[in-house]
């Protein structure tokens, strides 16, 4: 799958999920419609988004998405049309949330980020693991082979649903199951 689009350059490290979407916008029960709150906890966030209205690829610095587990961070990016976040590193929970919401978390090194922050657009080939700038520079990255399937098919829950019988079988035969029955169920 190819993701191609305008770059939103966010030249900051440690962008936490409170900045991506503050807690007072976490009051809904649906996963949609959160794009309007994207970066509303960030100084200059609204101006940045306004300056790059067509952007669909976020390029940023290390440890993106740290802090709270709120999947609203990924939902707000997806709702705003972002298909990839390119950074030297991600916080674990955001990294998982991105894959589960159609956003490719693309890891490249700091030097690549230096280049990409100055590009207007990039073309990302998720299957080949390549990232191409308009000037012809190419960078390579590796996606998690399993989570890539979730990304392409949107299928985390479907994947889990298909595992239920195997999990029940494991539970029935594991020693863990015997110990579990000895201990209190919460009811």
């Amino acid at each position, binding site marked *: 799958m190819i993701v191609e689009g305008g770059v939103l350059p966010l030249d*900051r490290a*440690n962008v*936490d999920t*409170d*900045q991506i979407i*503050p*807690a*007072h916008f*976490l*009051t*809904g*029960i*649906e*996963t949609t419609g959160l794009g309007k709150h994207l970066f509303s*906890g*960030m*100084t200059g966030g609204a101006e940045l988004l306004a300056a790059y209205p067509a952007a669909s690829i976020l390029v940023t610095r*290390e*440890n993106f998405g*740290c*802090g*709270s*587990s*709120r*999947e609203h961070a*990924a939902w707000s990016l997806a709702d705003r049309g972002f298909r990839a976040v390119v950074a030297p*590193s991600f*916080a*674990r*929970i955001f990294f*998982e*949330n991105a894959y*589960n*919401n159609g956003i490719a978390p693309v890891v490249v090194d700091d030097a690549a980020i230096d280049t990409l922050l100055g590009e207007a657009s990039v073309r990302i080939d998720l299957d080949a693991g390549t990232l191409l700038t308009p000037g012809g520079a190419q960078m390579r990255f590796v996606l*998690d*082979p*399993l*989570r890539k399937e979730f990304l392409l098919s949107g299928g*985390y*829950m479907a*994947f*889990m*649903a298909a*595992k*239920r019988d*195997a*999990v*029940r079988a*494991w*539970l029935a035969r594991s*020693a*863990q199951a015997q*110990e*579990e029955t*000895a*201990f*209190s*169920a*919460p*009811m």
Partner: protein
Amino acid sequence: MPKSLFEKVWDAHVVEELAGGNALVFVDRIVAHEITTPQGALEIQRSYGDELFDPARIVAINDHVSPAKDTETAIQAKVLRDWAKRHGIVLYDLGQNGICHVVAPERGYVEPGMTLACGDSHTCTLGAFGAFALGVGTTAQGGAMLAGCLVLARPKVMRVTLDGRLCAGATAKDLALCVVSTLGFKGGTGYVLEYAGEALTTLSMDERMTLCNMAIEAGATTGLIGPDETTFSYLRGRENQPTGEAFERKVAHWRALAADPGARYDREVRIDVAALRPMVSWGTNPGESVPIDGAVPADAEPASLRYMDLECGRPLRSIEIDQAFIGSCTNSRLSDLRAAAEVLRGRTVSVPTIITPGSQAVKRAAEREGLHDVFQDAGALWTHSSCGPCLGMSMGVLAPGSRCISSSNRNFPGRMGAGGRVHLASPAIVAASAVLGRIASPDELVPAVAVTS
């Protein structure tokens, strides 16, 4: 082959190895709160026949905004409540609830060797019991509700050995801030932290939870502490735990979880904490913390300085505050409230001060000891339990530019309110600062006015 505590827990829960170094990991317990659960619950209702893997493994807690502050949060609480009722899931609701990371252990739902997931990053708190407890997103929590498992990349294990014993004035919060500032804000990413060392031996479960609570602030998946007599004593006789021989059989199993001698770790960090002083954050992430006797570092990050309106070399004790908060999943348990009360007894706060117990059970226990009188006599606001001001969602949102000293866990820009500034510290430091109106420690306070108790 000798195993670490984490390896023992992990290995006992791997259902299937998956591509890319991932594994399908069984989840013994799911803690579900109203902010991050409804979306997954509704998805399962819409697409999977409303069928849960095992409702008896789930504990539901309305905790973030309880009571509801508006229609939207009322709907969140109602969705969680209706879902719990529909499936026979145990629910801690208004009046019996509190912060999920406080309620779950105090009700006996967390024990050594278990895996536990919750859609909340501070679930790492519960690693204090020697459980593999981690925060996950809504989709991952939903997957666990649906199929009893998480998909996880196997984390690396870092042993963090805390040598020496804490001296007077230093607390578990200071340990936590020390660990985060030593490792750095992302120094633990990709790891679980397995704590070890002499400093742990004297820590209560409350204090261990405070320490593990902030593992996520170093980016770690979680923090774990090997279960010992302190752990077993905490659980013995607790509700939702068996009694008598059945409990002691569990203890025998839990003892075997201790890390084996010779266990191998992906990384080793040793910190001598014998001389640890109270720590206070100056910047915009918890790693930007220094001893209270110190100053804003010379190499401070300019963006953090700008946001906090501070300059390099500024002594911490000279920083004036506008508000104080004692609460959050980091420091809101009975021992935290006692520490704050010891400072506030017979004294008066000079800035608006909010004190929020971690659960309604903690609130009642505190009131039986008269702590609510101490706080209110001092002029502080004593509230019901809530996540409250910690995340700027309700009950004490900061105004832009306002500076708060807080016993919570995050000092991110805007965390406690747009433009608000947060300094993290222990309850005793927050209490002393509330009295003096600037960052301060209890030893600076003049003797309190004697009060009859």
